[in-house]
């Protein structure tokens, strides 16, 4: 077959020989078989080594076969394609593995009882208990942080895109960039130093303040990009109707960009929902239900996971995994909601 293919290629027509569609799978199967053979023969214990050998064999085999049948250019194309696939798999494998581990370990104790009870009368070594207090804490702290961070972030972005000129705008952009890089523990220490000066005990809202600091730069950046995407012609059309600038921004620019802005805010919320360090410093943690974010220590989901894992023991580990699953589900639901809003609000 390959001889005929080579003749075809030299015929000078536009259609050269092509490998059949199933050939990548055949090459993959062949290289896995050979790799297993080599692995068993050489006594290599680790499956990772087998996989690496199979991957190298696959790339070399693809190049060799394709170069022989289809020519060098197509062979390079196939190698590039397989490298892209390998990169994709490398990126997806940890994600799938993480979700799989969390789900399989998390469902063990995740039930209605777990979601509706606190750890108040349950010692960390016992079974039972739940995360109700942590969910309450997380929702309140993240909610308050969003109420502070999102409006300030969006308004800062509006300033930068619609009004900011010269020195001040440059300075704001610079500090937003710096803020993006602030480690969460530093934001926590900043608020903690204020609390020490004012001699305050840990409470939920202090955590919200630190989370808001972490959230703001993310919101500013994403909102800025979205506002820049709004065509200038729409602003001019509105101004030419005799609409004042602030009304143009409020009624034309922001509605046009609302889908993207919402997505940005949701992603920022997802980011701060998983922060542990500032909560540990400022909110302290509390096995009892405390619904008042302005008075007394609270729990939160990431902090709960940390404390349960630190406590050790099978019961605590199970609870930590179940809480992790809840946190991932929370973030995922937020992302889905954001995508839904973006799709619903995008002009068609």
């Amino acid at each position, binding site marked *: 077959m390959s001889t005929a293919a080579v003749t075809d290629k030299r015929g000078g027509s536009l259609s050269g020989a092509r490998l059949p569609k199933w050939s990548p799978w055949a090459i993959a199967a062949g290289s896995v078989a050979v790799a297993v053979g080599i692995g068993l023969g050489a006594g290599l214990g680790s499956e990772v080594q087998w996989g690496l050998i199979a991957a190298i064999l696959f790339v070399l085999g693809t190049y060799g076969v394709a170069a022989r049948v289809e020519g060098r250019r197509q062979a390079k194309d196939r190698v590039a394609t397989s490298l892209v696939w390998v990169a994709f798999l490398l990126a997806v494998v940890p994600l799938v593995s993480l979700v799989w581990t969390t789900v399989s370990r998390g469902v063990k104790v995740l039930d209605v009882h777990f979601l509706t009870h606190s750890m108040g009368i349950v010692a960390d070594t016992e079974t039972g208990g739940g995360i109700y207090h942590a969910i309450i804490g997380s929702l309140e702290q993240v909610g308050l942080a969003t109420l502070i961070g999102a409006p300030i972030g969006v308004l800062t972005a509006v300033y930068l895109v619609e009004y900011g000129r010269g020195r001040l705008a440059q300075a704001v952009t610079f500090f937003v960039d710096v803020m993006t890089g602030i480690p969460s523990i530093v934001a926590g220490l900043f608020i903690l130093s204020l609390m020490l000066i004012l001699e305050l005990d840990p409470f939920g809202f202090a955590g919200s303040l630190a989370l808001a600091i972490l959230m703001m730069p993310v919101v500013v950046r994403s909102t800025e990009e979205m506002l820049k995407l709004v065509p200038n012609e729409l602003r*001019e*059309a509105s101004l*030419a*109707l*005799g*609409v004042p600038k602030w009304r143009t921004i409020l*009624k*034309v620019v922001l509605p*046009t960009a609302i889908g993207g802005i919402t997505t940005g805010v949701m992603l920022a919320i997802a980011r701060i929902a998983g922060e542990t360090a500032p909560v540990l410093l400022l909110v302290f943690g509390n096995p009892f239900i405390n619904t008042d974010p302005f008075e007394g220590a609270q729990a939160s989901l990431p902090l709960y996971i940390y404390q349960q894992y630190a406590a050790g023991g099978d019961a605590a580990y199970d609870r930590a995994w179940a809480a992790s699953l809840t946190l991932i589900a929370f973030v995922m639901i937020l992302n889905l909601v954001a995508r839904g809003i973006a799709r619903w609000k995008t002009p*068609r």
Partner: protein
Amino acid sequence: MAKRIDVSGLTAYYGSHKAIEDISMTVEPRSVTAFIGPSGCGKSTFLRTLNRMHEVTPGGRVEGKVLLDAEDLYGAGVDPVSVRREVGMVFQRPNPFPTMSIFDNVAAGLRLNGNYKKSELNDIVEKSLKGANLWNEVKDRLNKPGSGLSGGQQQRLCIARAIAVEPKVLLMDEPCSALDPISTLAIEDLIGELKDRFTIVIVTHNMQQAARVSDRTAFFNLAAVGQPGRLVEIDDTERIFSNPSVQATEDYISGRFG
């Protein structure tokens, strides 16, 4: 209702770059005045100085006087927002608001300015769409998005949006350059109807269009490459196209330019 425009000694800058220099002209009410000239000679810049849209561009500033029925648009204490309510504008590319329906687009000027009566809104929208010769095509889908219309319909929608706020003057910056000949004809017919109610100024690269729709024509040109644009002459359209008083105008119109 339509108002006269008197421009004297107008010079416009982008930052330190002088775009147009020392332009003086009179635009008669209830007439169509066409601006023609090569690209980059400042026609659009000059048009945008007439409703203070020029200063929206960063670095844009203006020297000189623009009188709208004896009131200086650049006088002390004049609010650009109220100037733009008097002098409306239609842009080169149709730009309906993508988040709004056809109805909301036409009502946008009134709603965003906040000075309207709810009961009048339907009538004004219908009247404006009829005025823009678009009513029969869209009356059954007023709640559909404006971006779903064809290019020519979108441009007429933009004209309806501009005339809904009852301006005294309507500026049009190459309104047909993105449209096919049929839509262009529709807009030209519309201009002929609108000039009974508005003072119309139109920038165009299409000489036949200028000859067809306008009463007066102004020819702009650059003195030399890198120099600011200036007004060469303004006269009755018939005269500009048959017997212009400046040789450069005749060269440009007959295609012997450059």
